[in-house]
């Protein structure tokens, strides 16, 4: 979530993007449509899950979520949190590769959806899975490494979500970018969280780990590449 431009450039962009104001407000109809589409796509897994949960709850189809609905709900929410997180991290490389700065307009939205799914995932664990065994919560978070990193990932997302507004961007200035580098740690923790729960078939978490390595590797590489010529000219 690091912007490569200074806070001033961001402030200008911010002002321009306010709905109904600024020069690009009229020209952004396709952008509004695209944003709407992303909203709908991001809400689709949740909607599907809620619909199936409704079928189970009302006894219309108690098998809609399989034999272990609690596990199915937890897994789906966690999976989408991770996917949306990686999508968020893919925005900057995609912008650089395609030269489409407009992609940045989707980053906060995707990040907030990742946070929403992660929060629901956490809530499902607390509310549906532990179901009454509240005394277990702290012990589990402290003792189980996979829960520890999962909880840490969610906890670190909280300040990022809270400071995702334009107001906080302005207030934090250049610190905003630094703070939002936490998302790299969040992504690593999230993949570890998945990795450590698997018993023997690591293919699925491995896929996510590879995607994350690619996304972080790209950042490292572009950073080094940018630094190298500067050093040569100095």
């Amino acid at each position, binding site marked *: 979530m690091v912007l490569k431009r200074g806070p001033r450039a961001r402030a200008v962009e911010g002002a321009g993007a306010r709905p109904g104001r600024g020069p690009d407000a009229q020209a952004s109809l396709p952008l509004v449509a695209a944003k709407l589409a992303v909203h709908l796509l991001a809400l689709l897994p949740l909607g599907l899950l809620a619909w199936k*949960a409704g079928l*189970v*709850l009302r*006894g219309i189809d*108690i*098998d809609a*979520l*399989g*034999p*272990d*609905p*609690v*596990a199915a*709900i937890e897994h789906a929410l966690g999976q989408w949190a991770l996917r949306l997180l990686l999508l968020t991290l893919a925005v900057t490389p995609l912008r650089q590769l395609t030269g489409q700065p407009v992609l940045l307009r989707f980053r906060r939205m995707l990040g907030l959806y990742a946070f929403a799914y992660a929060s629901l995932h956490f809530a499902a664990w607390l*509310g*549906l*899975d*532990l*179901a*009454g*065994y509240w005394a*277990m919560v702290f*012990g*589990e978070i402290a*003792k*189980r*490494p*996979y829960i520890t990193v999962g909880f840490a990932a969610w906890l670190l997302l909280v300040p990022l979500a809270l400071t995702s507004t334009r107001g906080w961007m302005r207030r934090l200035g250049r610190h905003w970018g630094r703070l939002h580098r936490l998302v790299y740690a969040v992504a690593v923790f999230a993949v570890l969280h998945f990795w*450590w*729960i698997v*018993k*023997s*078939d690591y*293919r699925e978490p491995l896929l996510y780990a590879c995607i994350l390595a690619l996304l972080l590797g790209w950042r490292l590489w572009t950073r080094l590449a940018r630094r190298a010529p500067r050093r040569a000219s100095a």
Partner: protein
Amino acid sequence: MSLRRTLAIPESAVTDETVYRRRRELLGAMAGMPLLSLAGCAEAEPPSPSTARVTPAEARAGFSTDEPLTRYEDVTSYNNFYEFGTGKSDPSRAARTLRTSPWQVEVSGECDRPGIVDLDDLLRGAAPTERIYRLRCVEGWSMVIPWLGVPLADVLRKFAPTSRAKYVAFTSLADPEQMPGVRFRSIDWPYREGLRIDEAMHPLAFLATGLYGKPLPQQNGAPLRLVVPWKYGFKSIKSIVAIRFTERMPPTAWNRLQPREYGFYSNVNPDVDHPRWSQKTERRIAGTANRLVADRIPTRMFNGYGDQVASLYSGMDLKKWY
């Protein structure tokens, strides 16, 4: 009548739990009636609360329980059977390719009558019986399943194990042709399990050939699987093709993969956590009610079979021999 023929009950006869629980009553009522299908009879019955008929003797022996049963649909679609894929629903989709007949079992090792025997011969003479057992998976969920089969001891005795037979090792089929999951090394195939001989001879140790009154579905380990209700589910090896009596503790699949996480004994024990997760409680998958909130219950020592099996481990440090 062979056990397998006894179990050849038509699909239509599979009934829901309520009716299943009342089967003895229904069969009694049917005795004087003209022959009609059990299914038809079942449909005519108004739904009634579970009326378990667990005799005190059965309950004492641990052979049955009046806890709500896990639905047939759930028992047969939520399976860990990595030979057919590592997803819970993979086996119910992929295991149809498993040919369960003809089926032979090779019995070898420290016994007087080793040999390769047909399944029918293996089971011959042993009285088919039903057991309603709790099944506790090491992953933290559990079921209550009505099995059909024979006591393991009755089968093992036929091969006359010698005094050197200290352990019994079991091997699953590992045929990549029939079992797509075997093409991926999630486990060091074939799947192997083992019991100490006194565990294997315990009256609760069971060889299942059916569940819910019908032949074992492929995804549940057809045609022959072990059921050891006081141990974590992975000890109850599926689709057995070899039984070997050994003097030394045999290697077991999960123990070889992660020795710190899965011991040879793997008795259900709420006081010994899996290194990565707690074993103090479990999510019970049973019945139809309240499926959106976990039916979380405390896990019991030896999965609630302590009265029957605790003496097998007297003097043993179960934290060390997990």
